[in-house]
Structure formats: C-alpha cells, structure tokens
C-alpha cells in the first residue's frame, strides 16, 4: 500500500463518520476508494497474507449457480462470511471437543482439568449452573445445549473477526437474524411445551380476574402489543449482536485510518511517525475492548435467550 492509498482510506473513514465534512473538505479528491465498508460487508473476495507488494492479496472465491427451491432463489456460493462461518464453526468444534475430552480424561484420572480444558469447563459450568438453569427455570436441562451452542458459535465468530485477514460473520445481519430466528423458535416451542393450551394467553391477552367490560377493550389493545413483543425480542437480539460487532470494527478501522490523515497533515515528515502513536494506542485499546465485547455479546445473546425462555415458561396470566 502506498501512503497515498492509505491516505484515501483515512479520508473514507472520516467520510463514513461525517459525510458533510468530506464534501466541504475534499472536493478535489477525484478517485475515492472505500476501505472500511468492503472490510465490514460481505463479499466474494478473501484477503490472504502476501509479501509481494503490500501485506495482503485478494483472491476471488468461486461462484456457484444459484439454486431454485420453489419461488426461492438461494445463492449458496461461499462468500467471505460463509468462509468465516466455516472456519469459526470448525474451530469451535475442534476446540470444544478437544477441551471436553481433556476435561473428561482429567476427571477420570481424578484430578481437576487444566489449561484450555479447565477454562472451557469453567465457562460451560458457570453458564449452565449460574446463567441458563436459574433463568430458564425448573427442568431447564433441555435448553442448556441450545443456549451453550449459540454462545460458543457466536463467541468463535466474534473472536475470529479480530484476527488479521479474517472477517466477522456475526457482523452480518443475515447471520445474526438466522440465529435470532432460531432463538425465537426455541422460545416459542418452550412456551408451547410448558404452557400447553395456555400458550395462547401469550398471544391473546385475556386476564381471568377482570370484568368483561374492562377485559374486552384491554385485550384489543394488549394483543397487538403481545404479538409485537414476540417479534421485537429476536429482532433486538439480531440487531444488538450485528451492530456491536460492526461498530467495533468500524471504530478500529477509522482509528487506523487516522494514522494517514496525520501523515498527510504533517506532510509525511518524521513527526508523522510520532503522531501515529496516538491512533495506534487508541486502536489497541479499542481492540482490547473488542475482545471483551466479543465475550460480552455472545454472553448477552445467550443470556437473553435463556431469560426469554424462562419468561414464556413462567407466564401464567
């Protein structure tokens, strides 16, 4: 990457955050290249390490012909986020199964699990005993596997996006929406199983202990609210995860872009290297925050799913 290219990156970073200023400041910039959005968005190119010119090289992923199912056209070709899903899924399976085996072997030998196995065991035990079971309520054992799977899949996707050359699949609304739809189905099925016919009360608000004259209008008002509530919960799940992951990456990229703004402002003098320390320090801090946010968002996704399952199972009107 030439300094000129990098400078343009930075300008785009600024442009993304404040479009108004770009027009005022740089009408002369004829050719603009957006470095941030292609990184955050899905695409059919993959960045791989390269030491020829620059540090990365783009390879084009194969395109498959879309398949037609009824009125539905599905393009199943592996885009960047699909590849990231595969990698993080494979890593998740590898790490979890290896850790589980390590933990089981340690238990069989009568000693506590150490290292990765110990860490994974501690996480799984904490989430099951102190987060999932207390929130889901009595006989919540059936929902433990779903909640833990969702947690670890989201966690591995989040963390994979922090590595160089990688992208965050959970920063794509399609991925988070699919996971949220799965949570929605699990929540509603949990409600049907726990309440039986009483499940209808979670759609139609019908309090038994009110007189009919009060009940009828309140039901008319509350039923749409109840139905809306069913869909806002998974919608919020999808949006929260997507927005958090995307925002973090944009913040880091914008801070990195600032290095080149400073360079241009200082006319590429040696002082520019000193000035670069500020964005480097800031983006390092944000990256550290991102590691924490990766865990936090995976935890929140799982926690809220467990809370919603518990809510619908407890809701006796």
């Amino acid at each position, binding site marked *: 990457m030439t300094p000129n290219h990098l400078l343009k990156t930075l300008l785009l970073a600024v442009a993304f955050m404040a479009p108004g200023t770009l027009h005022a400041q740089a009408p002369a910039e004829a050719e603009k290249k957006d470095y941030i959005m292609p990184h*955050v*968005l*899905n*695409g*059919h190119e993959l960045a791989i390490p390269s030491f020829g010119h620059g540090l990365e090289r783009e390879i084009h992923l194969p*395109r498959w012909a*879309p398949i037609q199912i009824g*009125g*539905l*056209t*599905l*393009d*199943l*070709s*592996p*885009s960047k*986020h*699909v590849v990231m*899903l*595969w990698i*993080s*899924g494979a890593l*998740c*399976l590898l790490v*979890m*199964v290896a*850790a*589980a*085996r390590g*933990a*089981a072997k340690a*238990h069989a030998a009568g000693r506590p699990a150490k290292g990765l196995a110990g860490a*994974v*065991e501690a996480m*799984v*035990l904490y989430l*099951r*005993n102190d987060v999932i079971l207390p929130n889901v309520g009595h006989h919540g054992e059936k929902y*433990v*596997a*779903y909640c*833990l*799977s*969702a947690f*670890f*899949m989201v966690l591995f996707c989040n963390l994979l996006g922090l590595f160089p050359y990688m992208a965050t*699949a959970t920063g*794509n*609304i*399609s*991925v988070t*929406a*699919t*996971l949220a739809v*799965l949570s929605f189905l699990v929540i509603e099925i949990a409600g049907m199983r726990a309440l039986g*016919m009483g*499940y*209808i009360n979670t*759609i139609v608000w019908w309090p038994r202990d009110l007189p009919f004259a009060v009940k009828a209008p309140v039901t008319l008002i509350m039923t749409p609210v109840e139905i809306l509530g069913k869909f806002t919960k998974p919608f919020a799940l999808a949006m929260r995860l997507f927005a958090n992951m*995307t925002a973090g990456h944009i913040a880091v990229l914008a801070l990195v872009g600032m290095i080149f703004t400073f360079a241009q402002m200082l006319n590429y003098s040696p002082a520019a290297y000193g000035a670069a320390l500020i964005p480097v320090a800031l983006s390092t801090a944000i990256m550290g925050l991102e590691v924490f946010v990766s865990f936090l968002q995976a935890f929140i996704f799982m926690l809220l799913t467990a809370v919603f399952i518990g809510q619908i199972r407890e809701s006796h009107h």
Partner: protein
Amino acid sequence: MRLLKLTIASLAGLIATAAPLFSQAGEHAATATEAAKPGLLTVDGGLMFWTLIVFAAIFTILAKYAFPLILGAVQAREAALTKALEEARADREAAAKLLAEHQAKIEAARGEAQKFIADGRATAETMKSTMLEETRKQQAELLERAKRDIESEKSAAIAELRREAVGLAISAAGKVIEKNLDDAQNRKLVEGFLAGLKQ
C-alpha cells in the same frame, strides 16, 4: 384445540408472508455482482442457509461429544446427591422405626424387672414372717417342757423328803419310847399323827 390450530395457521401465515422477502434477498444476492452492491442491512439467503447448517453442525456435535463430557461429572454428582438425600431420608425413617421398637422393648423389660423385684421382696417378706413364727413356737414349747420337768422333779423331791422324815421320826421316837411300845402299834399311832399333820 381450535385455538391451537388457529395459532399454528397464523404462524404458518407469517412464514408465508416472509417468504417473498427471502426470494427477494436471493435475487438480490444473485445480481449483486454487476449491479447494486450489498449494503449493511442486505438480507442474504445463502448466508442464512449456511448459518443454519453451521449452527446445526455445532449444536449436534457439541450436544453429543462436548457438553455431556464436561457436564457428565456435574450431572452425575447432582444425581448422586439426590440419590443420597433419598437414601438418607429412607434410612432416617428406618432408624426412627427401629428406635421406637427398641424403646418399646426396653419399656417391656423394665416392667418385667420391676415385677421380679416386687416378687422377690414379697417372697422374702413371707419367708421372714414364717420363720419368726416357727421360732416363737419352738421357744414356747421348750419353756413349757422345762416347766413341766421342774414340777415333776419338785414333787418327787417332796415325796422323798417326806419318806425320809417319817423314817427319822420313827427312829427318834423309838429311841425315846423303846420299851413300852410294840412296833406295829406305834407305827399306827405315828402315821395317824402324820396324817393329822398333813392336813
């Protein structure tokens, strides 16, 4: 039942209304290369499909090969705990039953012992009284016999003394009046005197 069917129908309706969105998304992705670039909120049907596949793989494999291994020990411990509690409750009940039984037995034994002691005391009492009675009787008998012996000895001694006295008197009187009196006549006289003396 009708309400449940209605619910299912409404859910199916919702999915049906959402289907065009999916197909739209698919078409969008298919034409994305040439024309419009995907935005932040573009729904990508293919990516959704792959998400489902990856999640299904993670869920099935982890639920079978990872979580049971990690949670197995905990679940076994929980099961053992509930079993131990159950057993403890049963044991406590059995112990309480045994204790009640033993207490009943001890109570019975104590009653029996009391009875034995009372019996012994009564026997001792009767034995004492009978022995005392017997001793008293024997004593009285001995006393009686001694009295009787003394009496007979006394009368024998009196008779002996009388006979001796008669002999002495005769011999003394004979010495005094030896000449005049023949023996037979005098004896009659003295005896007459003695008879008068006796009265």
